């Protein structure tokens, strides 16, 4: 472990680490944001239509069985992106994260008390407005919990992309492994953890900002 200071002493290495970290952030968070939007739409469909619900939950279960590595590499073959295009990783992670989030979103929407939605309808809300201003905000606590799991697992999944040469902190693992060099591996693990922690913290802050009523005294 004494290698770590030596490893970090090189300015080029530090710059490279920063690059990888930024790549990692980009590769893991873009899918997160996209999937939240997608999951909200799909979750809404699930919530409104029983058949869609069954179908989408089934599909997301199947998606979850595809190994991430496979998905990273099949995508270019299927949709014709460039082999090394980070879009592949982003797409793959988007698919996973959406699969992960659809269910909690649908459940959160279903958990909005019927009397609250009925009250909104009775006051003359049109469906879209009701969804955006009543149902969705109330689903935030559950959605946030899902997003937190999604962000953490994305951040750890991006590393696998290193096996096909797609940036991120995972490169530290493959490099370190080939050189039998623990320093980059340890630093890679630590940076991944710290990144996950920081993002999680930010998500908690964001959730708290969006849900002041929850801390006012008990769950909705």
């Amino acid at each position: 472990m004494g290698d770590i200071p030596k490893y970090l002493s090189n300015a080029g290495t530090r710059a490279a680490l920063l690059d990888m970290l930024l790549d990692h952030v980009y590769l893991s968070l873009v899918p997160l944001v996209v999937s939240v939007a997608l999951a909200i739409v799909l979750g809404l469909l699930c919530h409104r239509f029983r058949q869609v619900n069954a179908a989408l939950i089934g599909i997301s279960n199947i998606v979850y069985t595809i190994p991430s590595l496979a998905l990273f590499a099949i995508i270019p073959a299927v949709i014709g992106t460039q082999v090394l295009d980070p879009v592949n990783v982003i797409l793959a992670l988007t698919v996973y994260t959406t699969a992960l989030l659809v269910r909690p979103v649908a459940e959160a929407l279903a958990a909005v008390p019927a009397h609250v939605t009925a009250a909104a309808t009775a006051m003359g809300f049109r469906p879209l407005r009701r969804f955006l201003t009543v149902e969705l905000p109330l689903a935030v606590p559950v959605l946030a919990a899902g997003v937190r799991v999604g962000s953490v697992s994305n951040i750890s999944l991006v590393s696998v992309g290193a096996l096909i040469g797609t940036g991120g902190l995972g490169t530290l693992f493959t490099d370190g492994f080939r050189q039998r060099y623990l320093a980059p591996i340890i630093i890679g693990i630590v940076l991944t953890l710290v990144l996950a922690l920081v993002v999680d913290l930010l998500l908690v802050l964001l959730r708290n900002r969006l849900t002041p009523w929850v801390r006012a005294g008990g769950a909705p």
Partner: protein
Amino acid sequence: MIEFRDVTKRFDDGTTAVNGLDLVVEAGTITVFVGPSGCGKTTSLRMVNRMIDPTSGTVLVDGKDVLEVDPPTLRRGIGYVIQQAGLFPHRTVLDNVATVPLLIGWTRRKARARAAELLELVGLPAELGHRYPVQLSGGQQQRVGVARALAADPPVLLMDEPFSAVDPVVREGLQDELLRLQAELDKTIVFVTHDIDEAIRIGDKVAVMRTGGFLAQYAPPAELLTRPADDFVASFVGKDRGYRSLSFVDSSGVEVAEVPTVVEGADAGSSSDWRLVVDAEERPQGWVAPDSSVVPGGSLYEVGASIRGALDAALSSPSGLGVAVRGDGRLAGVVTARQVLDVIESRRG
């Protein structure tokens, strides 16, 4: 005015929730729908603001078929108070109340001002406005629900078991509040409950419904108690209906008599009569028995209120003398059960 014209609602699963309902709710009155669970009260109510559309028949609000109005527009003109208040947990009390004004395009400032006004109207302190619904007691939430429904000053108000979630004492307070408000605002109100006491207490007219969506009787409450249309209504209004129907007999015919009094704290001396203890403001506090022991008093009734209170005052009094008070709580006099009974019998004749 709300009219149901031969309205039937059959759900997809074959349940007939409302069956040929014919009924007119006069403008400016409170009509209560009452009946056992599942008899179609909620369904009837919801056909007024098109939360549910009838299978056949017509519902008219102020002479206009509701099916001809776009639902959100219709609903914005009809206040709806839902069981358990249905408040938006994610909005402050003030924002909850301001919901409909904002929907119909008021400015935020104006809507908030209106909301604050309404909180006062329903008897809530202004500082509650910045709390969230979870931070309120059940009774406070119900009040907010009522305030919210009143916000855009709709002429029609639908209330579905609005007070069912609170305990009996608070519930009575809310009912009083509603009656006070109605005296002031003069809305057309349809009120659903499964509590016959509540129905009798607040309804100008009561519609008793029976399982299967049938209207069993539609009449003013006094008539319901004295002349139930059939056994179902009779058993539904309960076994105290004779006593309760006295609520609709006023007590003005009962002459109050004077009674010897003792001011609280003063020496009672001795006497062979029961003497009423009063405080410095002449408010009754209890009785001194002939043996000079002090005993708590019975219930009080207000002069001019219903004769039910007068009878209960007499029955509950240890001296056999029911105590009448004026509106300000001061002693008016005493009555005996016999006197009350005389009045009741004279009314019957």
